[in-house]
């Protein structure tokens, strides 16, 4: 938008790092208001800006901070004071009203404070942003991994990237910005620089339907399992915080999952008997120049690092830290720094110019997919029933993305993200993909098996109750009826399927 010719590379599909792995909360700032007021204010300002520019990706659910029986009753007053001081709108409502709005909420709560939390579909925002970037001339290359940051003496000249076929491409640039989050240390090292990122792993559990329609936070200083987020058709309970050494290599323990279910039970009685869909982890990109005692204490504010000062390497910037809700501001700061490096000042317009699809300023409405299906009940086929995805939309997405990977489609449409976790739609989508993308049988088979594996990855750690019944029905469908484990060329496919 500022007139620079730009190339974006990402080693996998867009937003598969930390961005695609959080719970979808668009902060009011309330979470940080007591401990980190600066971060809280930033959040609030960006919350307002994002509502302006990305309304289509945002659902105005509203939020509540509630004092549950295990919370410090004194925190609520502190919270209110801090909100007032930082300018975060807060309103106390009677407990009875909170329970009227959210009948599944723990009836033992003692206080309820309403704040302007919302939820955001990260992939929709990312792809909308990318579309806008492309419209302004940017070129976007997912599945292109940086293997080398090229230098000419102390000056960075670009990057060598490896594409999905294994071929390598040299990209030359006047300035390179690393926006690699938890992997920033690795990329910086490629350029001979040091960035100290502490990956903080957190897990989240998605429950199969909305147990609440408002974001519910525990009114307590930030701790594990203190938030329940209604995002699209599911509710997500999160999260934990465990420092890990490698942002790619971490595991999910039984104890953590149990902790999340208990946390859910505290907010919504009967949570443990409700249907837990899947579990996943994300890694927070916590940046700290000094090492703190506990990673949660590290500031969630972001930083732009100009490596010419820090490491003597020129034309290389790293934007690190931050939270999803401040992404726009982070980008603005990073590009401002790039302008400085390039010796030209150009103003940022992203705070005011709406993204494509958000021009009318209308927020996302949960009923929209149902309304859309109702309008075309007889004209189009329902392929993913759980998430109400019709065939026309699916085919368009496949062709536009130009992908033979069903997981890429999943991210933009939510294919397979509902209760049956692909039990019924995987087979249909494979048949459609096979035709729409003119795939060979082995490519189609592989797409199906990889998608099945990908869906399995998230259900396997916590499979029980209703979801276990579902998984068993899905076994009967894929193995019993379709016999997919004996697809031709199966042995090779098994090797390729990622764990």
């Amino acid at each position: 938008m500022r007139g620079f010719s730009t190339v974006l590379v990402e080693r996998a599909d867009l937003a598969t790092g930390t961005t695609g792995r959080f719970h979808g909360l668009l902060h009011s700032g309330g979470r940080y208001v007591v401990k980190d007021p600066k971060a809280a204010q930033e959040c609030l300002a960006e919350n307002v800006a994002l509502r302006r520019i990305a309304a289509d990706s945002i659902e105005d659910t509203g939020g509540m901070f509630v004092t549950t029986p295990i919370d410090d009753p004194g925190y609520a007053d502190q919270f209110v004071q801090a909100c007032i001081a930082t300018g975060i709108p807060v309103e106390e409502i009677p407990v009875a009203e909170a329970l009227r709005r959210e009948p599944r909420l723990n009836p033992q709560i003692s206080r309820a404070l309403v704040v302007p939390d919302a939820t955001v579909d990260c992939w929709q925002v990312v792809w909308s942003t990318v579309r806008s970037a492309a419209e302004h001339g940017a070129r976007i290359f997912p599945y292109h991994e940086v293997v080398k940051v090229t230098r000419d003496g102390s000056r960075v000249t670009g990057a060598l990237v490896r594409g999905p076929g294994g071929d390598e491409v040299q990209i030359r640039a006047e300035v390179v910005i690393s926006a690699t989050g938890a992997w920033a240390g690795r990329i910086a090292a490629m350029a001979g620089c040091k960035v100290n990122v502490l990956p903080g792993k957190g897990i989240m559990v998605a429950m199969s339907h909305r147990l609440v329609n408002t974001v519910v936070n525990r009114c307590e200083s930030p701790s594990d399992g203190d938030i329940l987020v209604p995002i699209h058709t599911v509710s997500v309970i999160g999260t934990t915080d465990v420092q890990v050494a490698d942002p790619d290599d971490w595991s999910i323990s039984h104890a953590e999952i149990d902790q999340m279910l208990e946390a859910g039970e505290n907010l919504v009685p009967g949570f443990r008997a409700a249907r837990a869909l899947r579990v996943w982890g994300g890694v927070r990109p916590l940046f700290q120049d000094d090492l703190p005692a506990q990673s949660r204490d590290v500031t969630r504010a972001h930083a732009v690092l100009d490596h010419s000062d820090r490491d003597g390497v020129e034309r290389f910037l790293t934007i690190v830290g931050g939270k999803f809700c401040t992404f726009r501001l982070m980008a603005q700061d990073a590009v401002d720094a790039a302008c400085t490096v390039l010796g030209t000042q150009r103003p940022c317009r992203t705070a005011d110019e709406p993204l494509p699809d958000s021009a009318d300023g209308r927020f996302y409405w949960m009923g929209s997919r149902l309304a859309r299906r109702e309008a075309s009940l007889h004209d189009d086929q329902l392929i993913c029933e759980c998430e109400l995805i019709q065939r026309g939309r699916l085919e368009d997405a496949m062709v536009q993305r130009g992908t033979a990977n069903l997981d890429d489609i999943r991210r933009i449409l939510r294919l397979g993200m509902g209760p049956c976790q692909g039990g019924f739609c995987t087979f249909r989508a494979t048949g459609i993909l096979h035709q729409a993308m003119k795939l060979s049988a082995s490519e189609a088979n592989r797409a199906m098996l990889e998608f099945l594996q990908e869906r399995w990855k998230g259900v396997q750690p916590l499979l029980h109750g209703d979801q276990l019944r579902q998984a068993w029905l899905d076994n009967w469908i894929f193995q019993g009826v379709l016999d997919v484990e004996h697809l031709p060329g199966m042995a090779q496919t098994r090797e390729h399927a990622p764990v």
Partner: protein
Amino acid sequence: MSGRAGDGRMADAVVVGAGMAGLTAGVRLAEAGLRVVTVAKGLGSLRLAPATVDILGYGPDRVDSPARALAAFVAAHPDHPYALVTPGVLAKSVNWLKERVNTYAYLGDPEVNMLLPTAVGVPRPSAVVPETMAGGDIRALKHVAIIGLRALKDFHPALVADNLRASAVSGGAAVEARSIMLNPPTGGEADVGTLAFGRRFEEAAFRSAVAAELRAALHDEQAVGMPAVLGFDHVGSVWTEFQEAVGRPVFEIPTIPPSVPGVRLARVLQERLRRAGGRFVLGAQAVGPELRSGKLVGVRIRTAARETVRAARSVVLATGGLASGGIEVDSRGAVRESVLGLPVWGRPSGAEPGFLPRYLDEHPMDSVGVRVDRRLRPVGPGGEPVHENLHAAGAVIGGARPWREKSGDGISLSTGYLAAGAILEDAE
């Protein structure tokens, strides 16, 4: 049907569950003159299944003859339900079923597996299959057209054909396969499911229209494979007439649920139960045993406003495994048999995970279930039957990996048959 007036209304047998195992046991008992009450919390899994009788397909290698492979398979899997079953019993139970299915015929027997294409085009071993499907046996196919119906999203003929062409069958060449997409008259509806097509095919005019379009599109293919939607109770005449109109043998390929062939079989068995005087209490969930002085005298069931007891001399537990909720796992990983609280075997111990990271692995939890003695009575830790008059049948019995082995129907049919046999022996 009258004849049991005033003799005390205690049932001879309560059967819990109306899947293949439960209906087999129930029908066998009712036809022998016993007073049978079948209690089912819903309609059973038959409606989701292909209605082929899969006895043993993989053990883990592909099996050519289930009957001949049985002994070695059982030796390698001594805790498998097939340890209770001989080739003789398999054959008897299969014949029993064949005799009772009257809206279509079953072909084949436990001696030989056919190889039928699945809806993704994989040759799947199956021993006893509806006549409407048997023509798809790949061992005999050379050149085939696979057809789709445009409004049917659950069948993708191009994928089937492509995979069929790539499937090498040992000792033979791969099949020549081509796909054709037909445009049947659906009154403008773009999304028509298997059940709706099943009903349409029972209409002569619809059949003619489809056959005409198909006939015009065929070249020199020797046979036509299509999704299994050739009608319900009238499948026999629908299939025959359709084939005639097409001018080639037509074979059905089973689809993902809902399964038209599955509904056919379910209706046949339910009707047999009814005709034999069996009573069917639909929708009532069995919630526990009714005991008197420690003896099992019936089953407690949940009705609309209260719990009642269905008293019986014997009880058959055919509630299925993890898929149907006959065995449940809660959020803490506790495994239980959900109706009577029977001891469950096969669950991983301590810290061992129940499920492994790769989807197609053999997971420790695959084989959980109750264990039974030779009279199909669930046993406790010492091997003694929990109740003298309680028998189990079907997927609630642990020790198998039926969707992988392709053995589910064989297990349900033979154990249902045997459980009924044990009760009949007791009654003599």
